[in-house]
C-alpha cells in the first residue's frame, strides 16, 4: 500500500476529528485563559495572619495616633486609630506610610561619598569615620564649628543631638523653624510666659483665619479637619482672609480676598473698629485693669489704621471690615487664627501679634472656643552633660546664626541666616554639619544661596532615611529607620493640647539602617571622654525608657501622654496681664509688615506659594500615591502650573496651559499657566513641595521647587524668614 497525499489528508482529517473528541483542545483553551488570569509577572500578595499595631505617625509634626494593618510581617495599610482621642486621625501622608516604608528611594545601608560616588559602608565604619573626623576637629579646637540642623527641637532624639553638641563643645544646634516659633514669640511677648497656643476651633462659633491653611495642612491636619467638620455640624462661621481661594477659603462661609502681606493691617483696622465702637465692652473686659499698654495701642490704631487707610491698603471694602469686626465681637466665642498656609514658614511677628490682639480684644484666652495658652510638655529631665574644658570653652562661643543676641534677641534658632553667614565668610564657619530629620537644602528659600553654602561646608553627615536633596549633598549618610521601624517620642504641640506620643516599631528594620538616637549615642561613645560620659545609656531604647519612666506604660497602652497641667501657666510672670505694648515690643519697632521682595516696576506680579494636602512640602516628600492625586492643572508630565486670574493672563496674552517664563529677583523657571478665577488679579500662585531633585523616579523632576524662586526676608522684629512671596514677571514662551 502506497501512502499518497490523499491518505495523508485523510489521516489529518481523522486526527482533527479525533482531537475534537479528546480533552486536549478544550482543556488547552481553558488553561490558556487561566494562564492570562494568573500571569506569572503579576504579583500575588502572600496571605497570612492579620495583625494591627498602634503607633504614632511622625511624618509631619501632627503626630496622629494611627493603626497599622499587617499581614504576617508585612505592613499592608495605615489606618486611622479608632479612638475618641483628639490625636487619633490620619491624613493623606499618614495613609502613604506603607508606600514610604517600602519606597525605592529609601537608603538601604550607610553610604560614604568617594569621588562623588556612593560607596556602601557598615554602620560601624560610618560611626568610626565620623568620630575620627570629629576628634580631629576637636583637637584643632574647632569643636564649635560642628553644627546640627534638626527638624524639630522637641523630644528625646533632638535632645540627644543637642546634648551631643553641648558635650562636644558647640552651641550651633539649629532647628528648622516654623510658625510655631512665632506662636511662642507672640505669646511670650504679650502674655509674659513661655506658652504655646491651642486654638479651640471646634468649640468656637466664629473663626476668622488670616490666611491660615486650616484645611490645607496647618497644625495637625486630621485634627483641624475634624474641628472644621464640627464647626459645620454646629453651623458655625469660618471666615477666610487670603488672596487665593484655597481649599480652606472654599470651605469657609465667607472668603475675603486680601492683598497679600496686608493681613496685619486688616487686623489692626478691625481692632480700630472694635475699639472705636467700644465693642470690647460686650465682653465685659475692662482693659485698663486686665491689660497693659492698651491706651498706647488704642492711640496707635486710631492714628494709623483708620477704616479708609486700611481699606486702601488691604483692598477690602470698608463695610466688610466693619462687619467683620462687629461679627467677630458679637460672637460668643470668636477666635482669630494666624500663620500662613500650613505654617512651614514662620512669617512676620508683627502680623501675628496684630491678629492676636483681636483674640485679646475678644478676651478669649483660656476660654472654650478661644485660645488656650499651654505650656510645652517638659519631661526630659536628664542630668547636664559632662563638659570638659574644650567643650566648656567652645560652648559659649557665639552662635553662628546670631540667635538670642542683639537684634535677634527674640529668636532661639535662625536657620534662615545660616546660608548667608556661611557664604559671607571666606572659609566656611561650619566644618562639620549634622542634618537630622530635615531636608534644609530643599525646604529653605533661596535655593541658590543655600546650595552655595552647603557646597562650602567641608563635611556633612545626613541621618536621612531617604535620598533627599540634602542627603545627596552629604559625605556620609547614616540612614535612620523609618518611623514604622523605630521607637520615638513625638511631641505634638500644633494647635492641640500638647501631648507626647510614642512611635513604636511595627516591623523590624527592613534595611541596614540605624536609629538616629542610637547613631548619635554610638558616635558619642566612639569619641570617648566626657562626651561618652554624657551618654550613659546603652542605646536609645534604654534612654527613652528612662526618660519617659512611668509615662511609657501609659503611652504603650494609650499611645499618648497628655500633660493636663499646662493651662495655668500663662500670665504667670511679668505683669500678669495681657500686654498690648510693653518694653520688649517697643524694642522691636512695632508694626512693620513685611512686603514682597523685588521692584514693582520690573516685576509687576506677585508670586505666592500655596500649600496643598496632596503635596508634602516638608522633610517627608510625596509618596507615589499622593502624587497620583495631584491634579493635572498642577502638574502635567513634568511641567508645573502656576495659577493666574484670567484677567491677568489676558494682559500677558496667556491661555490655559500655555507655557510661560516666570522670573523673580531670585530665579527663572519655565511654567505653564492655569487660569483660575479664585485668585486675585495680579497675583500668581505656585504649589510648594514639588521640583524634587532627590528621591525616586516617581517624584524626581516633577515641577519646580518654589524655594528656587523665592528669597528670604528677614523679619525685622524676630530675624526669622518672613517672606510670603516675591514679585515676579511672566513672559509668554
Amino acid at each position, binding site marked *: 500500500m502506497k501512502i499518497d497525499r490523499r491518505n495523508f489528508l485523510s489521516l489529518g482529517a481523522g486526527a482533527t476529528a479525533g482531537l475534537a473528541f479528546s480533552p486536549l483542545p478544550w482543556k488547552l*483553551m481553558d488553561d*490558556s*485563559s487561566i*494562564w*492570562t*488570569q494568573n500571569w506569572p509577572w503579576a504579583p500575588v500578595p502572600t496571605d497570612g495572619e492579620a495583625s494591627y499595631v498602634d503607633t504614632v505617625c511622625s511624618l509631619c509634626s501632627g503626630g496622629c495616633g494611627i493603626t497599622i494593618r499587617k499581614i504576617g510581617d508585612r505592613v499592608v495599610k495605615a489606618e486611622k486609630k479608632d479612638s475618641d482621642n483628639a490625636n487619633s486621625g490620619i491624613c493623606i501622608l499618614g495613609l502613604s506610610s506603607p508606600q514610604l516604608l517600602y519606597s525605592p528611594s529609601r537608603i538601604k545601608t550607610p553610604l560614604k561619598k568617594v569621588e562623588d560616588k556612593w560607596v556602601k559602608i557598615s554602620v560601624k565604619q560610618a560611626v568610626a569615620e565620623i568620630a575620627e573626623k570629629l576628634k580631629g576637629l576637636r583637637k584643632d579646637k574647632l569643636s564649635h564649628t560642628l553644627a546640627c540642623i534638626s527638624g524639630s527641637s522637641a523630644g528625646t532624639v533632638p535632645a540627644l543631638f543637642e546634648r551631643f553638641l553641648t558635650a562636644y563643645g558647640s552651641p550651633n544646634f539649629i532647628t528648622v523653624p516654623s510658625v510655631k516659633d512665632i506662636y511662642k514669640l507672640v505669646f511670650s511677648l504679650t502674655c509674659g510666659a513661655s506658652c504655646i497656643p491651642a486654638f479651640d476651633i471646634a468649640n468656637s462659633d466664629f473663626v476668622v483665619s488670616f490666611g491660615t491653611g486650616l484645611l490645607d495642612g496647618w497644625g495637625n491636619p486630621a485634627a483641624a479637619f475634624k474641628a472644621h467638620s464640627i464647626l459645620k455640624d454646629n453651623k458655625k462661621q469660618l471666615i477666610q482672609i487670603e488672596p487665593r481661594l484655597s481649599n480652606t477659603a472654599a470651605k469657609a462661609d465667607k472668603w475675603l480676598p486680601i492683598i497679600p502681606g496686608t493681613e496685619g493691617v486688616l487686623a489692626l483696622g478691625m481692632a480700630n473698629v472694635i475699639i472705636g465702637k467700644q465693642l470690647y465692652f460686650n465682653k465685659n473686659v475692662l482693659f485698663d485693669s486686665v491689660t497693659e499698654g492698651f491706651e498706647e495701642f488704642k492711640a496707635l490704631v486710631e492714628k494709623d489704621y483708620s477704616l479708609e487707610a486700611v481699606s486702601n491698603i488691604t483692598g477690602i471694602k470698608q463695610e466688610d471690615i466693619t462687619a467683620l469686626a462687629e461679627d467677630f465681637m458679637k460672637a460668643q466665642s470668636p477666635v482669630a487664627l494666624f500663620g500662613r498656609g500650613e505654617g512651614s514658614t514662620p512669617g512676620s511677628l508683627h502680623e501675628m501679634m496684630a491678629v492676636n490682639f483681636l483674640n485679646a480684644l475678644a478676651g478669649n484666652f483660656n476660654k472654650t472656643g478661644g485660645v488656650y495658652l499651654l505650656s510645652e510638655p517638659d519631661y526630659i529631665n536628664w542630668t547636664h552633660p559632662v563638659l570638659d574644658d574644650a567643650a566648656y570653652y567652645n560652648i559659649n562661643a557665639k552662635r553662628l546664626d546670631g540667635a538670642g543676641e542683639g537684634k535677634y534677641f527674640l529668636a532661639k534658632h535662625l536657620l534662615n541666616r545660616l546660608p548667608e553667614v556661611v557664604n559671607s565668610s571666606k572659609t566656611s564657619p561650619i566644618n562639620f554639619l549634622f542634618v537630622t530629620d530635615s531636608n534644609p537644602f530643599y525646604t529653605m528659600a533661596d535655593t541658590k544661596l543655600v546650595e552655595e553654602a552647603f557646597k562650602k561646608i567641608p563635611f556633612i553627615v545626613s541621618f536621612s532615611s531617604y535620598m533627599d536633596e540634602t542627603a545627596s549633598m552629604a559625605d556620609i549618610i547614616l540612614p535612620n529607620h523609618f518611623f514604622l521601624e523605630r521607637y520615638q517620642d513625638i511631641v505634638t504641640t500644633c494647635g492641640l493640647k500638647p501631648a507626647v506620643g510614642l512611635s513604636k516599631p511595627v516591623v523590624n528594620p527592613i534595611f541596614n539602617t540605624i536609629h538616629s538616637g542610637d547613631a548619635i549615642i554610638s558616635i558619642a561613645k566612639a569619641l570617648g571622654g566626657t562626651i561618652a560620659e554624657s551618654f550613659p545609656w546603652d542605646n536609645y531604647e534604654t534612654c527613652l525608657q528612662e526618660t519617659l519612666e512611668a509615662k511609657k506604660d501609659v503611652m504603650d497602652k494609650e499611645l499618648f501622654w497628655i500633660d493636663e497641667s499646662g493651662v495655668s501657666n500663662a500670665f504667670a510672670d511679668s505683669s500678669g496681664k495681657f500686654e498690648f505694648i510693653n518694653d520688649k515690643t517697643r524694642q522691636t519697632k512695632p508694626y512693620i509688615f513685611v512686603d514682597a521682595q523685588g521692584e514693582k516696576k520690573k516685576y509687576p506680579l506677585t508670586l505666592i506659594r500655596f500649600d496643598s494636602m496632596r503635596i508634602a512640602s516638608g522633610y517627608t516628600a510625596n509618596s507615589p500615591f499622593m502624587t497620583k492625586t495631584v491634579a493635572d492643572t498642577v502638574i502635567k508630565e513634568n511641567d508645573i502650573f502656576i495659577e493666574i486670574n484670567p484677567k491677568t493672563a489676558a494682559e500677558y496674552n496667556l491661555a490655559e496651559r500655555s507655557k510661560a517664563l516666570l522670573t523673580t529677583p531670585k530665579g527663572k523657571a519655565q511654567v505653564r499657566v492655569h487660569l483660575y478665577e479664585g485668585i486675585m488679579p495680579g497675583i500668581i500662585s505656585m504649589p510648594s513641595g514639588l521640583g524634587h531633585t532627590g528621591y525616586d523616579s516617581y517624584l524626581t523632576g516633577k515641577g519646580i521647587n518654589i524655594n528656587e524662586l523665592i528669597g528670604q526676608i528677614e523679619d525685622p522684629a524676630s530675624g526669622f524668614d518672613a517672606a510670603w512671596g516675591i514679585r515676579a514677571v511672566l513672559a509668554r514662551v
Partner: protein
Amino acid sequence: MDSALIPEGVKRCSLGRFSVWILALTAILLWGVIAMLLCWFKGLNQTNMNDAYGFALWIWADLAVIALGGGAFFTGFLKYIVGKDELKNIINYAVIIGVICYTSALLLLAIDVGQPLRSWFIFWHANVHSMLTEVAFCLSCYLVVLIIEFLPLLFENPKLDKKPFLRHLSHNMHEIMAVFAATGAFLSFFHQGSLGGVAGVLFGRPFAFREGVFIWPWTFFLFTWSAAACGPCFTILITRLTEKVTNKKLVKDNVVDLLAKISGWMLGTYIIAKIFDTWYWAAYTLPKQGFSLIDFYSNNPFYGIWILVAEIVICGIIPAAILISSGGRKNKRLFMTAIILAVIGVCINRWVMVLQTMAAPVMTFEGWFMYYPSWQEVATTILPVAYGAIFISFAYRYLPIFPQERELNPID
C-alpha cells in the same frame, strides 16, 4: 505560470505584474501586522484610547465595515428570497466583500479586547442581555454563513473544480443557497440591529440613548436598514473601483442600476426614519434628562451641528434622491457621487454613534473629551483594507467572480 488556476475565457495580467501589486499591498499589510503584534504583546497602551474612550477608532471601524459588508446579506436576500435574479451577476462579489468585512471586523475585535485569549468567554459565559453578546454570536455565525456562501465560488476555481467531490459540493450548495441566504439574512437582521442597540441602550449616555420604541425596534431598525441601504452602495463602489483598476467592464449597467435603485429607496426610507428618531430624541428624550440638542454640538473643537447636517442631509437625503430618480442613476458622475456619499454617510453615522457618544460630557463638571488615534490604531485599521485588496486580487484573478465578464470582455 499560474494559467491553470485562472478561469477559462478571461484575461488576467501577467504573474509578474500581479506579484508586484501583491507585494505593495503586503507591505501595507505588514505595517498593520506589526502594529497588531505591538498591541497584543505590549498591551493597549499602544493606542491613544483612554478611560474616557473605551470605544474608539476600532469600534467605529468594526461598525463601519459591518454596515458596508451588509451588501452581502441584503443582495443575497434580494436574490434568493425576493427573487431579483439579475443580482446573480453581482452577488459573488457582494459575498466576497462581505467575507472581507466580517473577517476584518472579527480581527479588529480581537485586537481591541484587552484579553484576546479569554475572548471566548463572550460565548461560554454569555450574558444574553448584552448587545455585544448578541453581536458576537450573530457576527460569528453569520461569518460562517458567508464562508459557506463563498465556498462554492472558491470551488469553481479551474483547479479545484476538477475534484469531483468539490464540484458536487459546490453544486449542492448552490442548490440550497436560498436556505443559507435566508439564515444569513436572519442573523444579519439581528446583529446589525444589535449593533444599533450597542449605543442605543446606554442610558447613562444621553447622546446615544433612545427611549421606548425608539430603542427597540427603532434603533435596531435604523442600523439594519442603513446597512441594507449602504452596504450595496459599497458593493457597487468596489465593483466600479475594480472595473477602474482592471480597466474592464465587469457587471452590466442594468444590474448595478437595479441594486442602486433599491438602495436609493432603502436610503430614503432610512433617512426619514432617522430624521424622525433625531427629532424625537431632541424634542422629548433629551429635555427630560436636562439636555438640549445644541449641548451635543457645541463647546468643543470638532463636533458641530455640521456633522448632523453632513450625516442626514448631505450623505442621506441627497444620495437617496439621486439614487431614487432614474435620471440621477443615469448620470454617471452624479451616480458615483451618490454612491460615495451614501458610503460616507453610514460611516459618519457609525462614527457619531461611537465616538461622539464617548466625547460628549455627561457630568456637568466634565468637559468634552477629544481623541485622535495613535499610529498603531491607524495601521491596524488600514490592515483590513490591505488584506481586503489582497483577498479581492486573488479572488478576481483565480475565481470566476463576475458571470458577465466573459460576455463583456470577449477574448479575441
